[in-house]
């Protein structure tokens, strides 16, 4: 049991930069650039880890605590999300809602830290981040509702298991509607274009980057890693809620676990590539157009719920 937990942590930490690297590479490909190597995120983090942090004179302990708490919260969420196996040792400790709130906790502390230094950019980033989170949340909850109404549970392991048990029957209209809705949400949550541009450092457009502007060195490494992990986790949510096929449902041999893991990596990469394609094919939106995007997602989720009701013939 403990081994499984540690292994899951290890997998998450190990895979997260890879996903990030792949996505950057794909984006570069579409932008007809060469782009950095797939392993570049690993190098970046290692580099940061070797450097000292420069700290502002204005900050309080919140600034120091924030990366730790945020990182732990994201990682804790990772323990509740099925990656390659549905029988999570700690699955009982929380469900989908808990995962969302753990992400919220992480965001909360990051945003707090952004205010701590007293810079104008930090506040801007924090404000926008929280704004987007508020936009996302109702849509997210509705899409969860759609899923949960279908399955009758919010336990992620249970959902994966049930959906994968259904086989291809699971591909129903509401499932697809909910998936698209959740995909849009994922864009926002991972800070991708058109919501945020992870590559920019232009003050007026950045959101996530603005929040962590004051971090450097080791602290920055942790923050960056946390962001990557969050991205990975959200993708795996997408993968394992809607396409859980191939996931190990427990009681299987080691070979099956390896296979499940492989399938998971492939799924993640596919989603990553899709995301990168979407990202390169759109332009960043103005902040105040974002509610439109979110209302699309909201509507889709709502339709999904209606579809559930109709299909189930309530």
């Amino acid at each position: 049991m403990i081994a499984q937990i540690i292994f899951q942590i290890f997998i998450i930490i190990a895979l997260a930069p890879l996903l990030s690297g792949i996505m950057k590479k794909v984006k570069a490909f579409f932008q007809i650039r060469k782009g950095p190597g797939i392993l570049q995120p690993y190098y970046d983090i290692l580099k940061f880890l070797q450097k000292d942090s420069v700290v502002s004179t204005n900050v309080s302990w919140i600034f120091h605590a924030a990366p730790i708490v945020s990182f732990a919260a994201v990682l804790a969420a990772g323990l509740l999300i099925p990656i390659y196996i549905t029988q999570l040792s700690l699955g009982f400790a929380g469900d989908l809602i808990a995962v969302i709130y753990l992400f919220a906790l992480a965001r909360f502390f990051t945003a707090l830290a952004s205010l701590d230094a007293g810079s104008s950019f930090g506040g801007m980033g924090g404000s926008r981040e929280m704004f987007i989170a508020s936009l996302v949340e109702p849509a997210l909850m509705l899409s969860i509702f759609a899923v949960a109404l279908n399955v009758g549970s919010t336990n992620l392991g249970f959902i994966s298991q049930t959906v994968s048990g259904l086989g291809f029957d699971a591909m129903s209209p509401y499932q697809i509607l909910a998936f698209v809705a959740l995909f849009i949400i994922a864009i926002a949550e991972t800070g991708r274009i058109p919501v945020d541009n992870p590559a920019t450092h232009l003050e007026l457009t950045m959101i996530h980057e603005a929040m962590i502007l004051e971090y450097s060195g080791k602290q920055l490494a942790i923050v960056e890693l946390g962001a990557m992990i969050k991205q990975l986790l959200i993708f795996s949510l997408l993968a394992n809620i809607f396409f859980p096929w191939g996931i190990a449902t427990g009681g299987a041999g080691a070979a099956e676990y390896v296979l499940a893991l492989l399938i998971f990596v492939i799924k993640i990469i596919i989603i990553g590539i899709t995301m990168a394609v979407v990202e390169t094919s759109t332009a960043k939106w103005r902040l105040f157009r974002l509610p439109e995007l979110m209302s699309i997602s909201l509507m889709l989720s709502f339709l999904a719920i209606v579809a559930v009701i109709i299909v189930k013939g309530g």
Partner: protein
Amino acid sequence: MVAFYLIGAISSVILNKKDSICSYFSFFSAAAGALLGVIFSISVIFGETFYLALSQDSYLEFGFFVDKLSAFFILVISISVFAVSIFSTGYVKEYFGKKNIGRLGFLYNIFILSMIFVICANNAIMFLIVWELMSVISFFLVVYEHEKPETRKAGFIYIVMTHIGTGFILLSFMIFAGTSGSFSFETFNSAGLTMTPLLKDLAFIFAFIGFGAKAGIVPLHIWLPYAHPAAPSNVSALMSGVMIKTAIFMMIRISFDFLGASGSWWGYIVLAVGTISAILGILYAVVEPDIKRMLAFSSIENIGIILIGLGASMIFFASQKPIISAIAAIAALYHLLNHSVFKGLLFMGAGSIIYSTHTKNIEELGGIIKKMPLSAILILIGVLSISAMPPFSGFVSEWLTFQSLLLSFNLNNNFAIIMLSISAAFLALTGALAAYCFLKFFGMVFLALPRSEHARHAKEVNIPMLAGMGLFALLSILLGILPVYVLPVLDMIAASFIGTGAFGQSISVGTFWMISIPSSRGISISTPVLLAILLILMLIPAIILLINRRAQPIYETWGCGQPISTARNEYSANAFSKPVQMWFKSLYRPARETEATYSSPYLKESFRFESKIEQVFEQYLYNPIVDFVMIKSRKARLIQTGSIHAYLGYIFGILTILFMFIIAGGS
């Protein structure tokens, strides 16, 4: 218990002259009373219903009746009172020499007593008396600092709104009494059975409006953002923390006990009103610069969340799903308990901030985390709880609320499912905005550089205040990580008015303090484990940070290469909430005023910016009503012309009319 409060009240009047002794006497006896209240209520929850009748023979029957539901509310009140009383002994030092402490102590004790009586009353007349007593006393507390005009306005709006509410309550009671022929609550119980559906509906609607005015549901909420900031902070902690809950208590009493929650559309009404209150409450809170007003708006939000739970419970109950109904009721009760704890904590926190900085404008604060480190931690706990961050208390109750909404898949009712899902979406939005709001609050108040002289001279508050807050902070954490010990109790209470409990049937407690709701489907949560995971996982980054640690270079905040060392460059609270303001432009109807002076055509010398938002309900609902009444009154006043001839003419006129009446009737 009653005696202690009375002692507190009387001693504070007697010891009027000596401020400090007076405050100790009144607040410590209140605390002692609260302790007894805790013991008493726990004994009732686990024991027998308490019944005490006074003066049976006279026209006004008075009696006390405490069942499990009442006991729970007494418990909530007592806990809050205990912490707030301790806080108060420190807090009132602010008023020494300036205000009459004796009066505060007296009113404070009577106020608590009246709340307890409201919960215990077993007779509609007695209930109305103590209910209004509670309102009146709290009105006096609101206008404690009556020198300020805005306080007077607050008091006035408060008392009028509460009076209107009482009017509706009266109507509702009249319907009951008309059926049962008596004003005793016992007979009301059976009255529900014999009433026609229409009467039931009316009784429910009147009661809902009447108690809603006290609870602060939209659109009857307008008094809250005035009254709570105006009152001394320890009082606002009680008003917001517990007083508005008494209304919830009566809503439960009336809709479940008296009326048997028979109409399913009641649940939808409660749900819809709760949802609207939650979302509008938090929307106003987000953009509010006054910290106490913000907390008041947030109370509206939380009442909304409680009502969502309650509404869901009523919907399930009416659909013959008592077990699920019990779950929703538990969620509501749990959130109620939590809210009284963290809102009390936050109001005390606001009190501490005001105590040490003398301002409640968020734009003038900042950076006081360095001056008030302990308060900051305690308030941070409150902030995390109210933002529903795991594993703090708010999370558990919101989780439960979500789950109870989700359980709608058990219903065979499409409309219910859609309503509950929409409500869940709004609840999610509310939650996110609450986090936004309280992030802003904490960040702007405590972090970065001080924005004014007020904040620069802040000091840590005294020990009683910290102790009061600390108690609540501890409770917030405990309620967050140990729900398994609270839920069975709440289940007993919910069972007392729903009929069946959910425990052992739908909710169960597993290993590792795990709570699961239908465990067959694996929905479960275990906050202690979450906390443990979080703590253990924190080790990873912490270790990374600590390995090979050298002295951290300290440097100025980065400002695009330019040094920024003043607070003027900080992001302001208004700016922080600007996106929401833009998003909900149609609700806020923001108006801005700018004023710039130029020393030369190209160089601005100074710039003033002011933005205001409209209180839509006041603007478009209440003001027109008031204007209408005023205009009509002005016209009506013309009949008093001052001319004696006209007056005699009236008499002549009325005589003629009555004659007509007689002749018409006579022939």
